[in-house]
């Protein structure tokens, strides 16, 4: 049994909070530069230029890429040979979030009571944490600070199996069309299909943790990702919704087995920053 101190988890989490909010991932950086080459709209090009310059300023001057430094969302793959000492996993992660958001001058955007007082917790906790127990003696922590504006443009729909591929495509494209400029395009579209009402939403979220632009390993879904992305870009919404060719940088689908009666589908949108990081401890 490998022993791992809760404080080690907290240290990594604190660093990840700062890093993810300040350094735009190379995956997104590359896609923004590619889009600048292909975008036809002059205003769209200007937006893309500002986004590239923004990422450079953020990196060079250690300023958060965006003022919405997000809800702290974690997927943890915990090797079952690892024994955590000195605290629980939730405590360790939340201690890291608290420190990372304070020391990194990140915005605290979480209110304790969603309906009545809406009083800020003051330290951006609690985080949203999904944990899988996996074989081995390693711990993989994936982190994404998830902005509220794009998160608000999410949807779950319990499609019928008879809706088929065409019904699934319509659901995703029409939903993204309705979201329009709100989630800060160019966007990354996380899509879940299969599972239960709750599972499909988690799959859509998980899709946003993929290296942006990588395709689904199953060639049928890889093709479907491209089809949906092209349909979304053909809407003409463009960067920031000002009109243009680049509405979506990528569409990522995560599938899961389905009940015979169901075909659950979910869309979770991320803005162009699509901040995400992972570390293996």
């Amino acid at each position: 049994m490998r022993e791992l101190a809760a404080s080690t988890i907290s240290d990594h989490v604190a660093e990840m909070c700062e890093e993810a909010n300040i350094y735009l991932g190379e995956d997104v950086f590359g896609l923004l530069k590619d889009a600048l080459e292909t975008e036809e709209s002059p205003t769209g090009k200007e937006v893309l230029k500002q986004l590239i310059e923004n990422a450079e300023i953020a990196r060079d001057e250690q300023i958060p890429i965006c003022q919405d430094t997000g809800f702290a969302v974690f997927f943890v793959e915990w090797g079952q040979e690892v024994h955590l000492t000195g605290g629980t996993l939730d405590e360790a992660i939340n201690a890291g979030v608290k420190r990372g958001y304070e020391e990194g001058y990140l915005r605290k955007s979480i209110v304790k009571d969603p309906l009545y007082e809406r009083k800020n917790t003051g330290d951006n906790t609690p985080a949203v944490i999904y944990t899988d127990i996996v074989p081995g003696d390693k711990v993989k922590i994936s982190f994404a600070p998830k902005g509220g504006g794009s998160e608000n443009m999410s949807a779950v729909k319990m499609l019928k199996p008879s809706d088929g591929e065409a019904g699934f495509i319509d659901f995703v494209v029409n939903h993204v069309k309705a979201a329009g400029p709100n989630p800060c395009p160019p966007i990354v579209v996380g899509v879940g299909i299969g599972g239960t009402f709750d599972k499909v939403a988690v799959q859509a979220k998980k899709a946003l943790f993929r290296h942006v632009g990588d395709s689904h390993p199953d060639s049928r879904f890889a093709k479907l990702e491209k089809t949906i992305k092209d349909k979304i870009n053909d809407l003409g919404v463009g960067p920031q919704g000002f009109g243009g060719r680049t509405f979506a940088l990528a569409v990522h689908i995560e599938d899961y087995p389905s009940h015979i009666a169901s075909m659950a589908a979910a869309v979770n949108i991320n803005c162009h920053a699509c901040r995400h990081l992972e570390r293996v401890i």
Partner: protein
Amino acid sequence: MEPKKIKAPLSDEDVMALKSGDNVLISGVIYTARDAAHKKLVELMDKGESLPIDLNGQFIFYVGPTPAKPGQAIGSAGPTTSGRMDAYTPQMLEKGMKACIGKGLRSQTVKDALQKHKGLYLAAVGGAGALLSKKIKKCEVVAYPELGAEAIHRLEVEEFPATVVNDAYGNDLYAEGAREYAR
């Protein structure tokens, strides 16, 4: 097209000279307010009480910045989603506000109010908070400090970039832009 340089606050003539799709660079004093501050301002209006800031001719920027590091005027400061302010915007325009800056779709009621009161809705680039922070030279809290990032701040801006989305003639860049590039 070269961006137009404009000075805040705005007159009716300034508003009428701008059209949907114009890129502008704003210099002068603007104010921030988002969800919580709007709620408080409109509650005061409903009670007929005076407001902590004079809205006449002013720009309101929908933003909740990150905390400033020592030596910075302000932290990352990009626009938030404007639709959440839709319920309050007609009253803000009635009280003299001339322009608001955010990102994302507005309701038909807001678009109508912009025409009625001669106002503008502009979008800054959402998620360009680091870049926009460099255009803000000075920042001070002028009302509701208890709201933290949501307090009303007075900002001195220099060549702050934004794009006119809804003008006072009823035009809408979001609708027209997508139509132009749809295929």
